[in-house]
Each structure stands twice: as C-alpha cells, then as structure tokens.
C-alpha cells in the first residue's frame, strides 16, 4: 500500500439527493502528487463529487451514494474512522469561512480535535501551516485576533491553512477564487504550485484558465457525467477528444 501511483480511485459513483440523481455513475482515478482539475458549468455535480470524497454527504439527510471510492486503496464506504478520513482529505469551501475564534485557534482546531494538546507542537503546526498558506507574515503579530476579522482573501488562505493543519494527503479546493480578487488568487495559485511537491490537489473550478494554468490533468464534468478526462495540454488544445469540451473551454456554451 502507498506504493501505487493512484491515490484516489472512483468506480461507478452515483449520488442522489432524494430522487434527483446528480452524479450518474462516474469512474476515474487521480495520481499521487498531481494537480487534478475538475471543470464544468454550474450544477454539473462538481461540489457534490467533493462531498463524496470526504463523506460529508453523511451530513445531508437526503443524500444516497452508491459505487466505490478508494483513497490510498481503502474503500471509504467501509472506513471505520470517518473523521480520520476527513483528516486525510482536506477540503476548502467556495466561500472563505473564518471560524469565530482566534486565528491561532482556527488553525489549531483540527489537531486539537484529534487529541493534540502539547503547546509546542501546536505552535509548530500553526506556524508551518500559515507559512505554507502564505499568510504567516501578515498575521504573525496578531494570532489572537479573530479569524472572522480578516479580509476575504486572508480568510481564504486561513481556510487553506486550516485544511493543511491535519496533514492531509489530498487537498480539495472548491472554486476557491470565487470570493477573492485576482491578485490574491494568483498568490494562492503560487501556494498551490508549491504544495504540489508534497500533496495531491483536486481543484474544482469554473475558471477554465485557472485549470489550464495549474492542472496536470483535467476532467470536464457535465450534468453528472464525465465528458472528457485527459492531460491538460490535450483538454485545452484545439482538438480535444470531445467536441463539447472545445465548445465549453472556448466559451461557446456554459
């Protein structure tokens, strides 16, 4: 285990909210240490896909999931410690959410939840994660001020720092640039390029250019089905395998 180059394997995944099916049996795999982009218009099931990966679908009463998802070889439907799973799969939501506690507590929250109490270790984690998220220099003097008091872009980086604090193997970002300005977006993109050496990144975005800039491979999801999955050079070229991909990427629909 761990030797395989595939870190996520999805087989025939279906997800329905009540009677409305939003993912119609999709299969794909993600390699270790790649940036894997998922693009597609709104309502195509991108966010739902991420919810399946860390099993936060459990918190949606009407959701039913079938098919298998393997993370590092383990079927997540059979994982006993679902909270441990969520620590392996970090998640950054579209809108930045600074929890209403201090910046320090925001980052230390996850390690504390898993039982870490030693002040020194926590200090180390807070500094490391804030540095990785390119936020340390801006907030190191006011770690005790409220996380909600930061600007939108800072909160989004705080969210990333929080997601990194439990040392995930996979980091999922769901349209992270939706609420922040282009300059901050570029800074976070640089952060992601730096992180790529260490972890696998799944990037859900509806900004086609962002996927083109960052991703090794790109998957085009539309109406709960995979239209095309391939290396970014091909997906974003003039001759992708599917005509619809070309149309979407070039703004003809979507």
């Amino acid at each position: 285990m761990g030797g395989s180059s595939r870190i996520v394997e999805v087989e025939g995944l279906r997800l329905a909210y009540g009677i409305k099916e939003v993912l119609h049996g999709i299969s794909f795999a993600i390699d270790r240490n790649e940036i894997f982009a998922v693009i597609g218009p709104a309502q195509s099931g991108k966010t739902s896909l991420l919810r399946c990966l860390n099993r936060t679908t459990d918190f949606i009463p009407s959701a039913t999931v079938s098919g298998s998802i393997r993370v590092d070889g383990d079927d997540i439907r059979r994982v006993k410690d679902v909270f441990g799973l969520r620590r392996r799969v970090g998640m950054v939501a579209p809108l930045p959410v600074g929890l209403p506690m201090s910046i320090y507590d925001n980052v230390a929250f996850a390690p504390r939840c898993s039982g870490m109490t030693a002040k020194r270790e926590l200090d180390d984690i807070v500094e490391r994660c804030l540095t990785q998220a390119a936020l340390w220099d801006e907030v190191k003097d006011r770690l005790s001020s409220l996380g909600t008091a930061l600007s939108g872009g800072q909160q989004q980086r705080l969210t990333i720092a929080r997601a990194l604090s439990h040392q995930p193997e996979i980091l999922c970002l769901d349209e992270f640039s939706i609420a922040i300005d282009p300059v901050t977006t570029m800074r976070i993109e640089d952060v992601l390029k730096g992180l790529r050496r260490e972890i696998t990144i799944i990037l859900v975005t509806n900004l086609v250019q962002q996927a083109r800039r960052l991703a090794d491979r790109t998957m085009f999801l539309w109406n709960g089905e995979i239209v095309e999955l391939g290396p970014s050079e091909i997906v974003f070229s003039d001759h992708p395998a599917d005509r619809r991909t070309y149309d979407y990427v070039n703004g003809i629909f979507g």
Partner: protein
Amino acid sequence: MASTGPTTQRFARTAQAARSERAQKVAKWVFGAMALAMVAPLIGIVTYLLYRAWPSLGWEFLVDLPRKGMREGGIWPAFVGTLYLVTISLAVAAPIGVLAAIYLNEYARDNWFNRLINLAVINLAGVPSIVHALFGLGAFVYAAQFGFSILSASLTLAIMTLPVIIASTREALASVPRAFREACWNVGATRWQTIRAVVLPNSISGILTGIILQVSRAAGETAPIMFTGAVFYKAVQRGDLFPYRLGDQCMALSMHLYTVSTQVPNVKESIPYATAIVLLGSVLLVNATAIAARVFMRRRKRW
C-alpha cells in the same frame, strides 16, 4: 424632445392616485391605532395597579409574613416559595430542553420519528396549564408518591416550560451559519466537537436569554402548582432565605394573589394590588433584563 406639457400631464395627480393615497393614509392610521390599543393596556394596567398598591408597597411588605389570616402583613413565604419553584423547575427543564434542542437541530435526520418529536414539542407547548396540573397530580403526587410537595410542583412546572426552552434554544442554534459547521466537519471534527467548539459558543447568549424568559413564565403560573404543592398558607421565619425543604409544601406569589383576591374576605384593600405588583414587577423585570441582554449581545456579534 417632447415639450414639457405632456410630461407634466403624464405625471400629474389623477383622481385615482389621490384616492389610493387617501386609502394608504387611512390604513396607516387604523393599523397604528390597533397597535396602540395593544400597548395602552400594558401601561394602563401597570399604572393603575401601582396606584392602588401604593399604601402597602415597601421593603416591609416583601419580608414580612402574612398576618391575621392573610388580611394584613407581607408576602415573604410566597416570594421565597416562588423562588424555590422557579429555580428547581428550571434546573430540571433547562438541561433537558437544551440537549433536546441540540438533538433536534444538530443530530436529527428528517424522518417520521423526528417529525413525531417535533409534533410532540408543539403539542406539549399547547397543553393547557390545568391539564399539566392534572398530570402533575396523577403522576408526581400520587403515582410517584412525591406527595403534595415543592418537588411535585417544580417537576410539573418543568415539563410545562420544557417545550418553550426547546423552541428558543433551537432558534438560537439555527442562527449559527451552516458554513461554520461544514468547515469543522471538513477538518475531521466529530458532531459533538463541532457543537462544543463552534455552535454552542456562538449561540449561548441566545440560549441563556431564552431560559431567562422562562423564569418569568414559571413564576407566573398558578394552575399547575395549585394542586401539586402550593398551599394557601405556610408559616416560615420572617426573612428566612431557606425555609423550605424539597418535600414541604410552600406558598407561591401567583397562588397567593389568587387566594387573597378571591378566597379571603375583608382583606386590606391594597394587599392584593401590592401582591400583583410584586409578581408583575418581578416578571417584567426579568423579561426586560433578558431582552436588554439579547439586544446587547446582538450588537457585538462576531460575524
């Protein structure tokens, strides 16, 4: 460009517009008068009661015992009795109510069983107070053999206040944005860790004000305690803060007001009024405090 003539004409007041504007004014005044008709009684009642109660009011009235068959003297045993009943009933109802609200708001899935619970809460809130009294008599006094006691009366009051505590706590919990919870779940926090770290700290002020508001409700209730533990008269030490034990019967302010105003002949004129003022005053004071606290908390909300 058209001349100004037609333009002014197009926007001139028509008879139609004037009519609807008049209707608007009338409506505003009528509804305003209705709102006023609601406010006026509060001020009127309080003023009148205060005026009639004046001769008896004072520190002496509060700490003195009722004398001469309750025709003179003060209300100390009733006042302390009410404190007992309110404290014990809330000590029972608040934890259960808050936990139940946490269950309904944070854990419950939308299935028939939890809809049944919701329906039960609504029903429990609607059960008449006299039916609660019958229940308290049948269940606590006789079946559980607590007898006519503070314990029976407090438990009856507790069940009565429970649904309202559940409702106000749920409202407070629901005001915490879902995004906060999702952020916690995404980093692997369990439900309870999420509740303790984020949900409770951000809703505690709302929960507490909801509970404080129940203090006044429990203090004002008469029917549920009338047949379960409150009595017309019980001798205690003047000014004694802890005169009762759990198994004792006690006096209560609300019950005392009922007694002196309907059951005892030839009571000194101002005594029932003064009793009403003490009861009403305590209730309104507690409520006003809770409301003020809520307004204050809302101002310094952190998100």
